[in-house]
C-alpha cells in the first residue's frame, strides 16, 4: 500500500468521518491511484466487519462505517476510470421477499456487499416473485440475494427459486438467502446455494459463490 494513505483505513475503523474525508481528499491531491484509496477503505470495512463478528462492535458502528464509506466513495468516484467503476466482484440482485417490509438487515447486507466490491441492484422490500425474475433476466447478476424476517414470508424464497428454475435462469446463477428465521436446513430445502447468518457471513458466502474465495 502507498504509505501516503496510511492511516486512512484506521480512520475508518475509528469511525472518524471528517478525518476519512480529509485523508481521501489529500490522497487524491497527491495523485495517489483512486483504486488504491478504495482498496484501503475496503480494508477498513473488512476490519470493522471482523470486529462486529467478534462482538467488539455493534450495529451503530457497523452502519456508521457504511455511511462513511459511502461518503468517501462519493468523493472518489469521479476520479475512477470507467473500467474501475465496474465493481470487480460482480453483480448481486438483492431484495426482501413479498409480504415482508423488513429491510434493515437487507440494507446492511447491501452496504457490506458494496464495500466488498460487489455491484448491488437493490429491489427494495416486499418484492414480488415476478420482479425478482424480471430483474434477474435484465441484470444478469452472478447472485440473487433474498431476505425475510417473517416465518410467514420465508416460503416466498422457494417460489422465487422455483420460478427462476422454470424460466431457465438458474444456470450459472447463485441464490444466497438470509434473515432471522432462515437456517442452513431451510436453504438446502429450497435449493438455495448458500445462507448468510449475518451481513458479514453473507459477504463471505457471496465471495465463495463467485469463486473469489474458497
Amino acid at each position, binding site marked *: 500500500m502507498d504509505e501516503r494513505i496510511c492511516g486512512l483505513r484506521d480512520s475508518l475503523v475509528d469511525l472518524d468521518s471528517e478525518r476519512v474525508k480529509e485523508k481521501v481528499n489529500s490522497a487524491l491531491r497527491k495523485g495517489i491511484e483512486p483504486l488504491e484509496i478504495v482498496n484501503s477503505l475496503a480494508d477498513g470495512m473488512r476490519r470493522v466487519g471482523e470486529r462486529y463478528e467478534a462482538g467488539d462492535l455493534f450495529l451503530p458502528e457497523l452502519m456508521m462505517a457504511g455511511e462513511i464509506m459511502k461518503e468517501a466513495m462519493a468523493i472518489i468516484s469521479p476520479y475512477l476510470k470507467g473500467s474501475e467503476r465496474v465493481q470487480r466482484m460482480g453483480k448481486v440482485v438483492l431484495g426482501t421477499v413479498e409480504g415482508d417490509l423488513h429491510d434493515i438487515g437487507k440494507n446492511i447486507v447491501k452496504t457490506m456487499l458494496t464495500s466488498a466490491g460487489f455491484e448491488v441492484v437493490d429491489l427494495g422490500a416486499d418484492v414480488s416473485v415476478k420482479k425478482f425474475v424480471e430483474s434477474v433476466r435484465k441484470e444478469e447478476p452472478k447472485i440473487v440475494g433474498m431476505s425475510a424476517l417473517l416465518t410467514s414470508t420465508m416460503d416466498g424464497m422457494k417460489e422465487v427459486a422455483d420460478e427462476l428454475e422454470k424460466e431457465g435462469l438458474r444456470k450459472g446463477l447463485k441464490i444466497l438467502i438470509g434473515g432471522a428465521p432462515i437456517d442452513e436446513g431451510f436453504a438446502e430445502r429450497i435449493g438455495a446455494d448458500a445462507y448468510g*447468518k449475518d451481513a458479514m457471513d453473507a459477504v463471505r458466502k457471496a465471495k465463495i459463490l463467485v469463486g473469489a474465495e474458497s
Partner: protein
Amino acid sequence: MNHRERVLAAVEHEEPDRVPVDLGGTVAGIHKGAYEGLKRHLGFKSETVLYDMMQQIALVDESVLKRLDVDTRHVSSSPLAKAPKKMLPDGSYIDSWGVKRVKAGYYYDMPSDGHPLRDASVDEVDDYPWPGPHEDAQKVIEYMGKRVKYLHEKTDYAVVYSSSGSFFEKSWYLMGFQRFFTDLIRDPTFVCRVMDKVVDCGLKFESEVLPEIGDYIDVVRFSDDLAMQSGPLLSLEMYRKYIKPRQRRVFQFVRSKTDAKIFYHCCGSASYFFDDLAEIGVDIVNPVQVSAENMDTKMLKEKFGDELCFWGAIDTQRVLPHGSTKDVEEEVKRRIRDLAPNGGYVLCAVHNIQPDVPPENIVAMYDAAKKWGIYPIT
C-alpha cells in the same frame, strides 16, 4: 390456588400449584388469522374484534380464554388509543405518533418514507406535533379504571396492563433505523432529544392513568426491543449511556404509582441486558426468544433465575408453526423443566401467535402446560 395467586406466586419466585399461562395483549397475543382458525377448531363462533391495528392482533374472547384456562386478563388503552390517527386512501395509515404504516402481508409496517423526523434538526424536535392526550383520553381512562377494578374485584385473574412508557422503538420509528443508529455516534444530542420527548409523552399519559388503575393491576408491561436474533442491537456501553438512564426514569416513575410487577418485553438475544434490567427494577422478562443467540433456557434460569421471572419461551419460530402437536408438547415439557423450578415462570408463546401456527398446536401448548406444569416439577 386461584389464577391471580398462581401468577403472583410465580412472579414472586415461589412455586404455585402449577405453571401459570398467558394469552392476550400485544406481545403475548394472537394474530387475527390464527385466532379465527383457533375459534373454528374449538367450535366457537364470534366476530373477531381487532385489539391492535399494526400487528393485527385479535381481542381474545372470554370463551377461548376459559377453554385454554388462561390465568391473566389484559388491559391497555387499546383499542381506542391505538386506532389509526389518519387512514389514507391507499389503505395505509398514519399512527398517533405520525409514523406511516403500510399493510404488507399479515401486518402493517413502516415504509422507508414513513419516518416523520427523518430529516429533522434538533431544533425542530420541540416543534413536532407530539401526541398529547387524545380527545377521548378521559373516556379511555375512565373505561380502563372501571375495567381493572372489575377484573380485580369480581374475577381472580392476574391483571396485566400495557403501559405507554416505552420509548426506544418509538424514537427510531420517528427518525428511521438508519438515522437513529448512526446518530447515536454522529449526533447523539438529536437522538436524546427525541427519546426524552417520547418519554415525556408516555409519562404524561401514565401520570393520568396510573392513579386510576395502579391499585388494581398486577403486572405493568413495557416493550422495547434492544436485540435481534443474532445479538444485541447496541453495545452495553451505549445502552448504559443513552437508554438505561431513561428506562430507570420510567420505571421509577411507574414504581411510585403502583406496586404492580414490572414486565419488560425485549425480543431477540436479550440476555445481554438482563443484569442491567434487573438492576433498574425489572421483575419479569418476555418473550424469552429461545431461538435467538444466548437464550438457552437452562443457562438463563441458572444465571438470572434468582432475579428475573421468565414469561414466554415456547418457540414461535420453529416449533409452533412447523412442529407436530407432539413436538409442541415436548417443547412445553422442556421449557417447564428448565424454567419453572422454584417458580419464576409464566408460560406462553414467544411473542404473538402468528397465522402460520396451526390451531391444533395452540391447543396442544395450553393443554401440555396444564398437564406437565403441576408442581413439584420433576
